C-alpha cells in the first residue's frame, strides 16, 4: 500500500508531510526548503514554473505570475473578495463561463482549481522524489471557514494533480492533531491560525487520543497579506510624499514593494528597526529615483494593530460559541507564519492570560496534522480519532425568503436532523426544497447547495400538510437531504454533490492537458 501524504495548501506557501515509522516528517523540496511558495508562472519563453522558481522571477514577470489564487477558488466572479483581488493582483483575472474567476496568462486561461492543482502536483512530486515511490493519496487542509464549494474545488484540484483526496480537513484541526499525537491527558486547546491569506480560530478538546472540535470561526480575508498591503500602502504614501511620484500604476514597482514589505515585516519580528532600500524604483525627467527609508517595529505595529484586533474579536466570538471563557483554555497553539509577529503573540497571550505553546512549528504543523489524519484513517490500531464538525449551518429556504437551519454550524458529524415543515398555499401540491449553507437568516445570502421538488402532496388547506425534511451528513461530510410527506409517505431525496465550479469533463480535460506538461517538466 502506498503512503498517504498530508498537504497544507496555503495561500502563500504550501507544505507536505508524511508519516515514517510512526513519526511525522516534513518533506523538503529540491531546494531544501520545507515550504514551497504557492506560486505558478509561465516564463517569457513559455516554460511553466512552480514554487521557488516562480517566485524568483515574479518581479520581472509579474503579469504572468500567479499567487494567492486560494483567495479566488470556489468563489463567484462578482464576489467582493474577487473584485478586491482584481485591483490588487498584477495578473489578469477574467470571468469564466460558470461565473467563476479565472486567471489569464498570455493567451491561456486557467481555472482556479487548475492553478491549485498545479501546486498540489508539485507537492506530490516533492513527496515522490523524497519517498522514491509513487504517491496516490492525500489529505488536504483548507481554512475552517471554507464553504462546500470551496472544499469541492480543492478536491477537484487534487484530482487535477492526480491525487485521490481521502479527506479535506480544517487547518486548525490538523494543527491540533499534530499537537495531540501521543498525548494522553485531557485538555482544551485553542488554535490561532493566522496564515498568509486567512484567519482561523478553533477550540478543541483532547481526551486520550480523541479530538473533538468544539467551535471554529474565522475570516477568509484576513491574513499576512493584509499586513503586507498595509506596509506597501505606507511605502507608496511615503514615496509619493518625498518624490511626488505615484507608483500604484507600475506593476514592477508594486511587486518590488510587496517583496520588500514582506521581508521588512518578517525582519521586524526579530529586530526593532529595518532599512528598506529599493534603488531605481522609478524615474522621471530628473533622472532615476530610489526608495530608501527606515521602518520601526512600533510603526509597523501601528499600521496593522486593527487587523490583529479584528482577529482577537473573532476569537472571543468563538469562545462564546463554545460556551467557554479564555481561562478555560489549557493550551494555545499558534499556526501560520504571521503568528511570529510579537504583536500577535502579545495580544493572544493577553487574551488567554498565558503564553502560547512553543513546541510546534507554525509553518509545518498543519501539513503534519494532515499526514497524521491520513495515517489514522488507514491504520489498524486506532489510537487517534478526530471528531470533526460541519463548519457552516445547513438548512432550507422557507416562505418569505427565510433560512431555516436544520444543522447548526459546529455540529459533530456524522449527524442526522429532521424537522417538520408545511405548505403556504391552499391545495399546494408540491414543495421546493432549496438546500442552503451559511449563517444568514436571509435565504438569498447563503450558498445554494442544491434543490429538488417533492410532488404529490395531498390536497389540503395551507398549513395542514406535514413535510418532514431530514438532513444527513456522513463521516466524509457528504450531505444528503430528504423530504417526506407524512400523509402519503411520498419521499424525495438528493445527495448534495457539492458542486465545484468545474464539471467532471472539464476536470478530465485539464488532467490530460497537465499530464503533457508533466512529461515536459521531467525532460
Amino acid at each position, binding site marked *: 500500500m502506498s503512503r498517504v501524504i498530508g498537504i497544507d495548501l496555503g495561500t502563500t506557501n504550501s507544505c507536505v508531510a508524511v508519516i515514517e515509522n510512526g513519526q511525522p516528517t516534513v518533506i523538503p523540496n529540491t531546494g531544501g526548503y520545507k515550504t514551497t511558495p504557492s506560486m505558478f508562472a509561465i516564463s517569457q519563453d513559455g516554460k511553466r514554473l512552480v514554487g521557488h522558481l516562480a517566485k524568483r522571477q515574479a518581479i520581472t514577470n509579474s503579469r504572468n505570475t500567479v499567487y494567492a489564487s486560494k483567495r479566488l477558488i470556489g468563489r463567484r466572479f462578482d464576489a467582493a473578495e474577487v473584485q478586491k483581488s482584481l485591483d490588487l493582483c498584477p495578473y489578469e483575472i477574467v470571468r469564466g463561463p460558470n461565473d467563476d474567476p479565472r486567471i489569464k496568462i498570455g493567451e491561456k486561461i486557467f481555472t482556479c482549481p487548475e492553478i491549485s492543482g498545479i501546486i498540489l502536483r508539485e507537492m506530490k512530486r516533492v513527496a515522490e522524489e523524497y519517498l522514491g515511490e509513487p504517491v496516490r493519496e492525500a489529505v488536504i487542509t483548507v481554512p475552517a471557514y471554507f464553504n462546500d464549494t470551496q472544499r469541492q474545488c480543492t478536491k477537484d484540484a487534487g484530482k487535477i494533480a492526480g491525487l485521490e483526496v481521502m479527506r479535506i480537513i480544517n487547518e486548525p484541526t490538523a494543527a491540533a492533531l499534530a499537537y495531540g499525537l501521543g498525548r494522553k491527558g485531557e485538555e482544551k486547546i485553542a488554535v490561532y491560525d493566522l496564515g498568509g491569506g486567512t484567519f482561523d480560530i478553533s477550540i478543541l478538546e483532547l481526551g*486520550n487520543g480523541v479530538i473533538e472540535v468544539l467551535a471554529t470561526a474565522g475570516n477568509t480575508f484576513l491574513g499576512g497579506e493584509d499586513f503586507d498591503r498595509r506596509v506597501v500602502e505606507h511605502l507608496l504614501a511615503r514615496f509619493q510624499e518625498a518624490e511626488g511620484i505615484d507608483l500604484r500604476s507600475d506593476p514592477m514597482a508594486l511587486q518590488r514593494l510587496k517583496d520588500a514589505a514582506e521581508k521588512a515585516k518578517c525582519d521586524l519580528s526579530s529586530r526593532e528597526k529595518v532599512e528598506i532600500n529599493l534603488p531605481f524604483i522609478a524615474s522621471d525627467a530628473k533622472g532615476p529615483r530610489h526608495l530608501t527609508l527606515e521602518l520601526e517595529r512600533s510603526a509597523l505595529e501601528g499600521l496593522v494593530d486593527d487587523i490583529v484586533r479584528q482577529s482577537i474579536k473573532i476569537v472571543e466570538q468563538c469562545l462564546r460559541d463554545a460556551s467557554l471563557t479564555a481561562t478555560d483554555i489549557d493550551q494555545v497553539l499558534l499556526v501560520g507564519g504571521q503568528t511570529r509577529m510579537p504583536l500577535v503573540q502579545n495580544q493572544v497571550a493577553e487574551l488567554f492570560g498565558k503564553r502560547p505553546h512553543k513546541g510546534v512549528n507554525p509553518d509545518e504543523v498543519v501539513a503534519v496534522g494532515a499526514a497524521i489524519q491520513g495515517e489514522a484513517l488507514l491504520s489498524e490500531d486506532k489510537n487517534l480519532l478526530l471528531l470533526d464538525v460541519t463548519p457552516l449551518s445547513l438548512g432550507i429556504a422557507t416562505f*418569505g425568503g427565510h433560512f431555516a437551519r436544520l444543522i447548526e454550524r459546529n455540529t459533530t458529524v456524522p449527524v442526522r436532523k429532521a424537522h417538520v415543515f408545511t405548505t403556504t398555499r391552499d391545495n399546494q401540491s408540491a414543495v421546493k426544497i432549496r438546500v442552503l449553507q451559511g449563517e444568514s437568516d436571509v435565504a438569498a445570502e447563503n450558498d445554494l447547495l442544491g434543490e429538488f421538488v417533492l410532488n404529490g402532496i395531498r390536497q389540503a388547506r395551507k398549513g395542514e400538510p406535514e413535510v418532514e425534511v431530514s438532513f444527513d451528513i456522513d463521516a466524509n461530510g457528504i450531505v444528503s437531504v430528504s423530504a417526506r410527506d407524512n400523509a402519503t*409517505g411520498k419521499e424525495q431525496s438528493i445527495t448534495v454533490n457539492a458542486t465545484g465550479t468545474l464539471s467532471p469533463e472539464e476536470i478530465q480535460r485539464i488532467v490530460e492537458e497537465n499530464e503533457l506538461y508533466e512529461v515536459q517538466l521531467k525532460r
Partner: protein
Amino acid sequence: MHAMGSEAPSEARVVRLAPGCNPARLPLSPAEGYLLSRIDGATPWRLLREIGGLTPEDVDRCLERWIDQGILLVADGAPGPNGAKRSAPPASPRPAEPPAAAAPAPAALASRPEEAIDASLEIPVEAQRRILAFEAKLDRPYHEILGVAKDADARTVKRAYFELSKEYHPDRYFRKRVGRHGERLERIFRKVLEAYELLADPTTRAEVQRSLDAAAAAPPAAPPSPPTPLSVVARPSPPAAPASSAPPAPPTAPRPRAPRISTAHLRALAQRKAKAKTFFEAGMAAFQASRWLEAASSVRLALAFDPWNAAYKESFAGVQRRANDERAKQFVKEAESALELRQPKEALRLYEEALHCVPHEPEINYKAARLALVLGEDPKRAKEYAARACELRPEVPAHHRLLGQIYKSGGLVANARRELEAALRLDPRDAEARQELKTLGRG
C-alpha cells in the same frame, strides 16, 4: 364495561413489529405513525387504544390491518384472554424497563444477532458482536447508552463519549469492508452523540432526568411509557400552528439539541390535552357567537397543545376559513376608506393584507393589481395579482385588460397583445382595451 368485555381476547394481546419491515416507508398519517411508534412489544392492545390521536375503534382497525399486512405480529407469550385480570393493571413490564427480550423494539428490527455476523468482513467477529449488542440497546435511557451513572458529572459523560467514539465512529473502519455494519455504526454513533449532547448540557440533562423520574413514578393506571424514542415518527417538536394574519411562514427550525424524550411524552401529553380541550371549548363557544377571530385563535391554541387531535384539526380548517374571510373583509373595508382619503399606497398594503387571508379572491386581486399598476412601484407584484385574477375568473374581460396594461407598461409587447386581444374577444365593445391595443401596435 360489557361492551369492552366482548373485545376481551384482542384487548389483552400484545403486538410487536415484524422483523425486517421498515415502518418508515409506510404511508401513515401522523396519528397512525404515532400509534406505530408506541408499539414496543410490551404495551398491551388495551392501552394502545387509549393512547390518543385515534379513537379506540380506529386503533382496532389500524392494528388489525397491520396484522393482516404482516407489519405486526402478535407477540409470543402474550397473556391469554383471562377475564379476571382484565381490570387490573398490566402485570408485566414496569414503565422504565426495556422491553422483554422476546419482543424486540423497533430499533432492533434487524435479524437475529448471530445471523448478522459475517466473518468475511473486515471487522473482527468480536467487534461485530459488540456492535450488534450496542445497537440492540439504543432505545435505553441515555445514561445507559453511555454506560454512566444517572448522576454522572459532565467530565465522566465526556470521557464515556470519547471512549465510545473511538470504538463506534465510522472512521474506525475507514475504507474497510463492513457490510451492513456501516449503517449500524452510523446509527450507534449518532445516538451516542445525541446522548452526549443531551447529558452534557445542564438544561437538557435536567429534562432527561425529569422524564426518567416521571416514568418511574408514573401511577399504574397511566399508560406505561415505553423507553423507545419516537423512532418511527421522530419529530423534534410538534409542528407549529399556522400563523395568523401574517403570511403563514412554515415553522422555523428546531432548537438545536431539542430533546426527544418519549418517557415524559405521554404524561406531558395528558396535561397538554386537558389544556387543549379548554381552549377548544372556548373556541367553539366563540364560533357559536360568530366571533370568528376569537374562535380561530382559541382553536389554534388548542391545536398547539394537542397537534394530533383530528377533531380540532378538522374544525380548525373551518374556523380558520371563517376568520380569514372576516379579517379580509375588514382589510378591504379599511382599504376602501384609505382610497377615499387618497392614500393609495396604504390601500394597496391593506389589499395585500386581505390577500394574505384570502389569496383566491379574484376581486381583491384585481383591485390590488390595478393599484399596483397605478402606483408603478412593483410591476412584478402587479402582474402576479392580475394574473391570479385572470386565472380565477378568466371570463371577466377587465381582468385580461388590466393584465395586458401591466404587460404593456413593462414592455412585454407580445404578452400584452395576447391579453388585450383576450379582453376584446370577451367583450368586443371594450373601448379601453381597443385603444390600448392600438397604441401597442404603434409602439
